[in-house]
């Protein structure tokens, strides 16, 4: 028991967020009579929030370096417009459009990163300008009109599912992949444990590890089963999962990840440790541009149109997700998983409140309070320790 208390105390923030997510999900389970747990709604939840999660991953890196990016909503719209013009007006193949769109995102990142890192203008101002610039360019590109429809192959990005074998009522591939993921997680957990023991580090008692794994695997497999009852695994989920795995690894286990945390934690000390902090911030913005472009493609594909108002206020959703997920405004703190959990909290609330018919007015109000209390809880905890 003591171990659990200790474990919890040391990780109030992370566990707190997960508990909050569980509580909020449970609350809506009651309020919607279980509708939010139907296979169809769970699938929708992913399709609706995929692009916000992608934006949150890019944003958490930016915020860890102690910066902010207000322009991602406009970038989403701009990239949607670019894709629309290329595919619908100019008949450029979908695969080439995707590459060009991601390159455009990278170029936007280069542009903003240049002003922030090498000219030294605060990111708040550069990206506020970017917010206007790219919204303006979107309006110009689209001439104020929406462009639609996209070809099926493009819509697949957001509405597609992994193909199945067999053709029964249940999606076999989904179940197989979920089992494979489970095995992978067990393997990784025990490999980490073995390494820890090898270096004589403190490890959790084996039963805690097993309990943790059991809960995790149950949730994953139950979720996969629900998806399998519907249409299987959406492409969006594959994209998001791959990004989570990649960025978690980068931030946790690579030198560049360390440099990002060190830059945000104490820029002067990082400089004097030989870290090229300007380059770090520059590349983090390039990365964010690419991810925002990816989110833009997902958004346009989901809407099946490129519209001038696309992605309005989306930057605020992404920023809220990151802060709910435990990042610090001052930089140096935050995790990819935290941002994802934060994004899911927002997503579950959006979805649940829509299901029970709460108007957009009160939805905004409630989300605002959740953001305030989540960060308030964090600040209070830090003061106490």
């Amino acid at each position, binding site marked *: 028991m003591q171990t659990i208390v200790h474990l919890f105390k040391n990780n109030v923030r992370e566990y707190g967020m997960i508990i909050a997510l569980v509580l909020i999900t449970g609350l809506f389970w009651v309020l919607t009579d279980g509708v939010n747990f139907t296979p169809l709604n769970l699938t929708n939840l992913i399709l609706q929030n995929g692009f916000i999660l992608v934006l949150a991953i890019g944003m958490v890196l930016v915020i860890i370096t102690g910066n902010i990016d207000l322009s991602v909503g406009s970038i989403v719209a701009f990239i949607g417009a670019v894709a629309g013009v290329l595919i619908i007006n100019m008949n450029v193949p979908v695969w080439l459009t995707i590459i060009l769109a991601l390159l455009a995102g990278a170029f936007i990142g280069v542009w903003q990163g240049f002003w922030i890192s090498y000219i030294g203008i605060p990111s708040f101002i550069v990206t506020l300008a970017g917010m206007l610039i790219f919204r303006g360019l979107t309006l110009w590109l689209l001439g104020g009109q929406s462009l639609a429809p996209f070809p099926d192959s493009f819509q697949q990005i957001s509405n597609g599912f992994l193909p199945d074998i067999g053709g029964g009522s249940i999606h076999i591939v989904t179940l197989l992949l979920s089992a494979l993921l489970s095995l992978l997680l067990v393997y990784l957990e025990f490999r980490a444990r073995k390494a820890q023991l090898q270096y004589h580090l*403190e490890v959790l008692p084996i039963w805690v590890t097993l309990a943790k794994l059991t809960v995790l695997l149950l949730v994953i497999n139950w979720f996969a089963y629900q998806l399998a009852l519907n249409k299987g695994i959406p492409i969006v989920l594959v994209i998001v999962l791959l990004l989570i795995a990649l960025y978690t690894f980068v931030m946790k286990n690579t030198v560049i990840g360390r440099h990002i945390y060190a830059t945000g934690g104490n820029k002067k000390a990082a400089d004097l440790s030989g870290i090229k902090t300007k380059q770090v911030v520059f590349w983090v913005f390039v990365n964010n541009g690419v991810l925002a472009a990816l989110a833009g493609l997902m958004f346009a594909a989901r809407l099946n149109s490129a519209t001038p108002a696309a992605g309005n206020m989306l930057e605020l959703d992404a920023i809220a997700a990151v802060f709910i997920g435990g990042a610090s405004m001052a930089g140096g703190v935050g995790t990819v998983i935290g941002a994802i959990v934060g994004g899911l909290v927002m997503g579950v609330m959006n979805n649940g409140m829509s299901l029970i018919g709460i108007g957009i007015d009160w939805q905004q109000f409630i989300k605002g309070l959740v953001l305030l209390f989540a960060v308030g809880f964090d600040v209070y905890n830090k003061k106490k320790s």
Partner: protein
Amino acid sequence: MSGYILEMNQITKAFPGVKALDQVDLQVKQGEIHALVGENGAGKSTLMKVLSGVYPYGSYDGEILFEGETCQFKDIKQSERVGIVIIHQELALSPYLSIAENIFLGNERESQHIMKWQETFSEAKRLLERVGLKDSPETAVMDIGVGKQQLVEIAKALSKNVKLLILDEPTAALNETDSENLLKLLLELKQQGMSSILISHKLNEVSLVADSITILRDGKTIETLDATVEQVSEARIIKGMVGRELTNRFPERYPQIGETLFEVKNWSVYHPQQQERKIIDNVHFYVKKGEIIGIAGLMGAGRTELTMSIFGKSYGSKISGELYKNGELIEANTVAQAIEHGIAYVSEDRKTYGLNLIDDIKRNITLANLKRISRLNNIVIEEGKEVQESQQLSEQLNIKTPSLEQLAGNLSGGNQQKVVLSKWIFTEPDILILDEPTRGIDVGAKFEIYTQINQLAQQGLAVIVISSELPEVLGLADRIYVMNEGRMTGELRREEANQEEVMRYMTGAGGE
């Protein structure tokens, strides 16, 4: 009793682990200039903070009498109300506001919260005349030089009907002409009946203007000299400042000194913003393998600026000069290059420049050399290796912590310093620069750090120690360089160095 405007009796102020002031007495006569001198860390600033209410009544022991009345200040406002005004070394002016606005900052000429601009400017003008400043009161403070800014500070003090003016190192940042003007002004104000306390490292100034001189050392009053009867010489003051025995505070050392390892030639550096201001002026020095050299000097002598400019040009502009390692010319234009060449710099300000306080111990230790714990072309970090290596260093330096996952910000000063030192040992340097390696840490941790420094020299490193504490320089170094105002003013071997000698070079008095 009469004749004293200020009496501070038996003032004792303790911080956790350190007694900063130990029964200090200070008596200032009505209408005199009273100099307060002592080494860095002797307790001068602390004493003035007690006097002005920065450390409120109740946080210290002892009594303060001002014009015969007992004072129990809770904040600066209260001490200013009775007429005690401090002008700090770092000027507290708002650069974008005008001279007049700065003079009345927090003390505005107003009626019912509406500014009375006419009165503000006319009174400012009158005050500026008193301090001999001819600039218009509408000039922005950032457009006048440091010397004039100092005068604005004094005008600001005068606007508060000051009776006792305290100046903390007023001439530290001034050139000679400005310094002279300021001292003249002080003498003029004295003629008008003003009492003042002058804190200064520049002993020639002290012996020029002071009527009495109180010497502090290690938080105690050593003596008060009367300069009205006869001129007090600088040598006399120095004797009082350093008259302390070197006890066994340093570990035994058996130097094994080899060939010259690192050499700096013709090194000149200008101020990073004011590019006409020369901070380091044509400095030469060298360190041998296994040798510890000390760089002594007062605050503002340019020691930190010198070493930071060497460490990948981290300070200054228009840097010129050559660096030689093992006789070969090397380039160290960035910190990364400097580290590559085996130079390590442990900053004097560990919280700002040394540590990421919100990250844990092991990650702080490995930050400057992640290469050593990564594989796959220095991309992926091996956490196990990181733990192992940082564990080893943590044991070697005796970092006291329950675990390496502890955040650096939660450690004591001594342990933080050990983490910073570990971080730079982890880079496997050949040349180790330590800037104030024991600032603000307790005696026990100091001894441990000295032991480490000795061991590192034993292993063949060339060690450069900067310290404001003379005993530390004398106790550690095999050879001592002394700096004054950006120049090397002396070089002494350990055997021939004593505190008086070093202090003479430090204060620019020269050694003969």
